[in-house]
């Protein structure tokens, strides 16, 4: 979830408030929801307008103000497990998949790399310098325990540190063995954040935390095994994320605080919708 001041176009709200005279008017805040809409064959459904969306906030029908599709730059965060379990062929696959992913990024997109073993490291801050990721990964030496939850938290913070639509791809083939933060703390952040999380995990690990976080943020969990083509998975996630809608509305008829249950539907036959189930007010 993100709160923006509606008087400006989407993301640059705070700047407009800075003026010679203090402004005392009430803040009218908008809600932004990242939505994947596919047809019956799971292909993205294009050309939808605000009138096609039905949004209910805590059961109250809302007026959708803006819908954008594919025209906003992306913040693509990568949070990779580099603990002892990710060595050899798996590490090489991870490097190849990252290279394949960064070639798909556009000039206006930004990328970042966070890695975690026992500690969390920000290897590449959010920037358009996508080559940083390859350079950083070429020097890593996986070792030690797995601070998965801490790594995801850092990845989400980095992802929302600049304007744009934020995707966080989390790769881990192990279990959390070292985090300080609890899963409930990071899930709580997931309720307050607009970062969409796509975890990629091995079939035998499948941490419940990542599954829950993907659901909460409107993302999707991908399970892979050592024979799967990780590059294909990474590219598919990016492609899917690029073809999501970003809809914006100003909540009406609901109180500001607490958990808001969201329902998003599309008035098209066979349309399937994936969006976050709610947000924390």
């Amino acid at each position, binding site marked *: 979830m993100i709160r923006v001041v509606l008087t400006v176009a989407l993301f640059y709200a705070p700047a407009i408030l800075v003026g010679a005279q203090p402004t005392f008017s009430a803040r009218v805040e908008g809600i932004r929801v990242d939505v994947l809409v596919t047809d019956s064959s799971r292909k993205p459904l294009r050309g939808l307008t605000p009138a096609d969306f039905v949004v209910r906030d805590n059961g109250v029908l809302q007026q959708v103000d803006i819908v954008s599709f594919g025209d906003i730059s992306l913040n693509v965060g990568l949070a990779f497990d580099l603990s002892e379990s990710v060595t050899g062929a798996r590490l090489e696959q991870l490097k190849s998949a990252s290279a394949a992913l960064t070639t798909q990024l556009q000039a206006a997109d930004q990328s970042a790399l966070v890695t975690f073993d026992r*500690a*969390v*490291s920000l290897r590449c801050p959010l920037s358009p310098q996508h080559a940083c990721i390859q350079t950083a990964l070429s020097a890593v030496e996986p070792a030690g325990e*797995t601070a998965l939850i801490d790594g995801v938290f850092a990845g989400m913070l980095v992802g929302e540190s600049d304007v744009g639509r934020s995707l966080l791809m989390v790769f881990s083939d192990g*279990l959390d063995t070292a985090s300080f933060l609890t899963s409930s*703390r990071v899930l709580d952040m997931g309720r307050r954040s607009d970062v969409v999380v796509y975890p990629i995990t091995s079939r035998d690990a499948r941490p419940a935390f990542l599954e829950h976080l993907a659901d909460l943020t409107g993302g999707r969990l991908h399970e892979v095994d050592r024979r799967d083509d990780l590059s294909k998975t990474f590219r598919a996630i990016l492609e899917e994320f690029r073809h999501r809608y970003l809809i914006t509305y100003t909540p009406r008829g609901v109180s500001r605080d607490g958990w808001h249950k969201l329902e998003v539907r599309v008035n098209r036959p066979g349309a399937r919708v994936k969006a976050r189930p709610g947000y924390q007010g």
Partner: protein
Amino acid sequence: MTLRTLLAVGLMATFESIAADERALGMLNAWIVAVDDHVAAEKDDALERLAGWTHDEVELVLPYVEAFGEVPADTRDRAVRRRRITGTDLALVRQRTRDLQARGDFDRFRKRAVILHTDTAILESSRVMVEPPRPFARRTRDELAKRVDVLSADGRVDHYELANPHWEFAMSLLDSLPRNPRRDPIVSDWYRAIGAHFANEGRYADALRHFQQARRVVSDAPEVLFGEACLQETLAAPRVQDYVRVTTLPNGLTIQGVSSPQTHLRRAETLLRRALAAEARFVEANLRLGRVLTQLERHEEALNHLNAAIRDSQDRTITYYAHLFSGDGWLALSRPVDARSSYRGALEIYPNAQAARLGLGAALRTLGDRQAAVEAVAPALTRPVVDRESDPWWDYYLGDAANIATLLAELRAPFKTRQ
């Protein structure tokens, strides 16, 4: 046909029994020499001789050592073992005991034996790897007596191995020491130090068995209660719980000793309260109790204990932890401003601590200040140094094992020479 077979088996068993007994008596004599020869903490000839015994040989001689050391046969396992010794052999063993008692240092000898077996278990990797147990196959008595442990690395099964039998020797011999007017201090010192050793090595199966015995022997020693509480807290942690959740063992096998997080946390709470009842100014017990209560979501109660730890602590690491966990408590109570203060308190002690910076980031993020959250966390993410000096959180689950070198050195100090 059937009768002949039965007779043959009986005869073979008798011959085997005689042969085994002679071997056991010979091993007992060699063991007595080794106990006298061993210098604590040294990988000397005495230790190598014991380490060279096979797992089966060690199990063979154990009842003889227990009988020699006058270990009470007050548990089922010991009673079963004792019955394996024939009357003739038992008389010979008791004569050897009387001979050694005549030397006048029988208690010290038994303590030296404890140290020998402890050193053998720690210094010699006498690891016996085995296939996973066959749950549905019929097992022999000896197989049933052997505990099989599963070792994992980063959440994956690495191998199965037999439990190290030298710990059983040490525990039995400690039990043989006089209990009146009071137990020898080596007993509680040993249970504390070896509990810390198991924690340090992540050997939770051994640690569970260890503390189960400790409860029977030194039920009111605060440091031992504290050690077991640390173990229970670790068993409740995701590192263990997640591993158990996803580990697939061969059909019919289960990992023993790990219950739900709440069960382990409640056990830890009970143990820590008993430790505090025995020693009210036990600062680290207050700290751990605070964190356990936080995890049990009894946050206000938890904060009282954490505040007490902050008030009484003379140790910067304990104070750091107490601030850190107070931050968690305040966040859970939806008081992010107080949480922010607590995490900042932790950072005043360890300015680069990643755990405290992540906590501060979470508090600031809850307050809605994204930029401040990023700025709080960022310094800890650039080339973090993973050591105790930059963030003691890395070592939190070690518990008492952080002091392992000192504890073992103190335990071995009186036995640094040959007899």
